[in-house]
Structures are given as C-alpha cells and as structure tokens.
C-alpha cells in the first residue's frame, strides 16, 4: 500500500506540481512549435510520452546497473543521449510506418525530439531525485510525458481560440504565444505545495 501511495503522489507531482514545461521550462521548442492544432499537439505529446517512458526507464537501468556499480557516473550524459537518440529513431520508424499523415505533419519536429531537453532533463532528474526502484522510474518517466502532453494540449487549445481573437498587431504570432505560456506557467504555480 505504501508503494502504491508513493507512486501515486510521485505521478501527480511530476504531472502537475513539477511539470517539466511549466516549472522547469524544459521542452519549450516543440511546446511552441507544434502547438498550433490540438490533434497535432496530442500526437506530439504521445510521441514524447513514449520516448520519455522508454528512455527514462532505460537510462535508469543503465545508470543503476551499469554506471554506478562501475563508478562511471561521468559517462552519464553520453549514455543518456545515446539512449534517447535510439528511442527517437525507433519512434520515427514506427510513426512513419503506421501513421504516415502524422509523420508528415510533424516534419522536422519528430527527429528534434532527440534534442528535446525535457527528455534528457527528466532522465537527469531521476538521478537527482534519487529514484530507488525501477517501477518508480517507469511511473515518473511516464508521468513526465503525460505532463508534457497536458501542457502542449492546453496550449494548443488556447492557440486555436486565439486565432479568432483580435490580437494587437505587434503581439501577433510568437509574442502572444509566449505571453500565454507565461500566464499558464503562473496558473500552474497554484499546484505548488499540494503534496
């Protein structure tokens, strides 16, 4: 029961309270770039969630079972980036095979998940937070992806409605998006201290 409770709090924490986008400001590039339409944003969120879960779990395993016993913590960054790159390649092949239209609408942003700092950030946060068990690593990495999906979908929903709004000329495009992102981040501050 204790484990389940801990996993649940960890999950809620990483989705809402320590949301990678809103509190750590990681993964802003796809967050701004692919949040034009909800369906695309959701697809991007799912792809990132998949890569995050896969690479978070794999990096935790490599870190705990290989690097720490051998005292090779310095090699963390290199190993983690390699895992992420391989996972993204895998996702790219999968999406190209089974969702060709999604693949075309992603364009350059799909390979760019490789350099999505939210993913490397999460892998490193798992180390910083001192995650002790594999199941916890899986849940937290999955939660990080869900948090990203929620963030990008909220943003896409707002931006779809923003299109019908009379935005001052100087603020059209990127500026109003960044202001929206800032206000959203402020709103998510309300979750701080919930757990």
């Amino acid at each position: 029961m204790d484990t389940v409770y801990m996993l649940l709090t960890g999950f809620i924490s990483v989705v809402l309270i320590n949301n990678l986008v809103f509190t750590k400001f990681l993964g802003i590039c796809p967050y701004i770039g692919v949040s034009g339409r909800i369906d695309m944003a959701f697809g991007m969120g799912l792809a990132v969630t998949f890569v995050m879960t896969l690479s978070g779990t794999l990096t935790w395993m490599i870190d705990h079972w290989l690097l720490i016993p051998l005292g090779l913590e310095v090699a963390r960054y290199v190993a983690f980036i390699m895992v992420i790159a391989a996972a993204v390649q895998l996702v790219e092949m999968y999406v190209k095979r089974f969702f060709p239209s999604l693949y075309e609408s992603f364009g350059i942003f799909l390979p760019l998940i490789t350099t999505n700092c939210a993913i490397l950030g999460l892998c490193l946060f798992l180390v910083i937070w001192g995650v002790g068990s594999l199941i916890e690593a899986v849940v937290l990495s999955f939660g990080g992806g869900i948090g990203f999906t929620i963030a990008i979908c909220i943003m896409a929903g707002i931006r779809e409605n923003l299109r019908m709004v009379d935005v001052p000329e100087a603020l059209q495009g990127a500026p109003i998006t960044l202001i929206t992102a800032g206000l959203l981040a402020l709103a998510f501050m309300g979750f701080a201290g919930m757990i």
Partner: protein
Amino acid sequence: MMILASVVSVLGYAVLAGLIMLGLGTAFAVLLLIANEKLKVPVDPRVEEVYAALPHLDCGACGYPGCSGYAKAVIENPELLGGCAPGGPEAANAIAAILNLQVSKEGPPLRPVVMCRAHKPERTYYGQYQGIPSCIAANAVANVQACKFGCLGYGDCMRACKFSAMRIENGLATIDYTKCTGCTACVKACPRNLIKLVPFAHENMMVVACNSLENGKSTRAFCQVGCIGCGLCVKQSDAFAVEDNLARVDYAKYEPSGQNETAYNKCPTGVIVYRGPTAQAPREPKAKPAPTAKA
C-alpha cells in the same frame, strides 16, 4: 610515481567507459537495424522521379496541397496527368515517360485573360461603394457598378496569385504574362467568372476583352470600351463569332493574319485587344456616334 599512478587509474576508467559505451552503442545499433527491417516503408521510386519532374511551386492548381501530393496522386490515378498547369505539356510529357504512358492531347499552354478592358474612367458608376474592399463582397451589392459583367477591381485575383503576376491598374485586373504560370488560381478567385483560359499558341493573342451579354445599346450606355455585338469583326474574319451580343475569338481557327488585323482595326469600341508579354497597348475606341433622336 603518484602522477603515473593516477594517469594509469584514469586510463583504466577510460578504457572501461569506452568499452561500455561501445557495448551500449552496438546493442542499440542492432536494435535499430532490426527495427529498420521490420518497419520498412516501401516507397515507390517513381514518386521521387515524378516529383523531380514537377516545377516545385506548390501552387495547388492541381487540387493537391503541394507537388509531392500530386506526384503520389498521379501515380495512383493516371487520369490526373496534365493536371499541373504551371508545368504545362513539358511536365506532363516527363511524367508520362516515367509512368510509361502516352499523352493523348497536347496543346499550347493555357494562360488566363481578363475579359474586360475598361479602366475606371471608361466605366459608369451609379454610386460609391464603401464596403469591404474585396470583389466577392462588392459583387453581392446590386449596381455596385453599371456593368454587371465587368471587372470590379478590388483585387481578389491579385491576392490569389502566388506569383505576383496580377496587379490592379486603375481599377482593372492586369496580368503580367512574364510571371504568369497558368496555375488558374485567379480564374477560381474571380466572383464574376471574368478570367478565362486562352490557349497561347503565339506570344500575344487576340482577345475580345469584354464579358457583357447586354445588347449593344445598353453596353454602350455604361461602357465606352465594351463589346456591342455589332459583328463587324465577323465580316472580316472567320475566327470571330458573335453570340448573345458578345463577340468571341475561336482559337481553333485563329492565326495572326491580315484579316484578323483588319477586324482589330475596325472594331468600333476597340474591345479587340492583344494580350501577352509583349502585347501592344489597346486601341482607343472610335468616337461615339452622334446620339440619335430619342423616341
């Protein structure tokens, strides 16, 4: 001694780290290799070839969002061959060669012509339109200008043109044929269906630049340069025909000839004009005949 020992220990770690990275790299490489084989997407090599034969303008004239979309579609459905207006017969022939097809009909490239030659001073207005500055909105207003057929001059075609080949010159849409690719975007944009496609067999083509179906008297009343359907051109040359008070050039019969030149010169309103990249300026209309006594 101390230094040597630390160097050796660092080297020992480096070798270990290198080995581990090598092992991890190999493992992932094998994984990706298997995935690549299992998830391979068969790509038709003809798509690339057809795409290379297209003009890469992504103008959308074919009805597909871009050239790559059309390339895929034309391979699946060869009936779409020739759908690329900017590419014209060259692109169609190239695609036909790739797909091992024969182009059935080949003609001169089609270019749009604005079937109106009246600039603002030559038209009649009953009032002043101050609504949304777009043709489609202005066209919804009855009597926005006296001529129900002529160019409105609010530039819907100009905004539709991706190649900045259209401009509004004193209230008349004018085409720059050096830039025009024949993508037909303007033809679709015009709410009055005023822009027609003409086969440009020669550099400059003769057209009757009017669309008015009103009878001669009415057309005269509101436009100095409209076609009045008098039939003088028909008497000069076979290539002309008058139907519904409007003369038209039959391009199947049209050749630059002396007869056509006479028709051009005899036209009382000067509505027969040349259109093309090096076309001469339209003729001035002849003086209006003295008004006859009203009944």
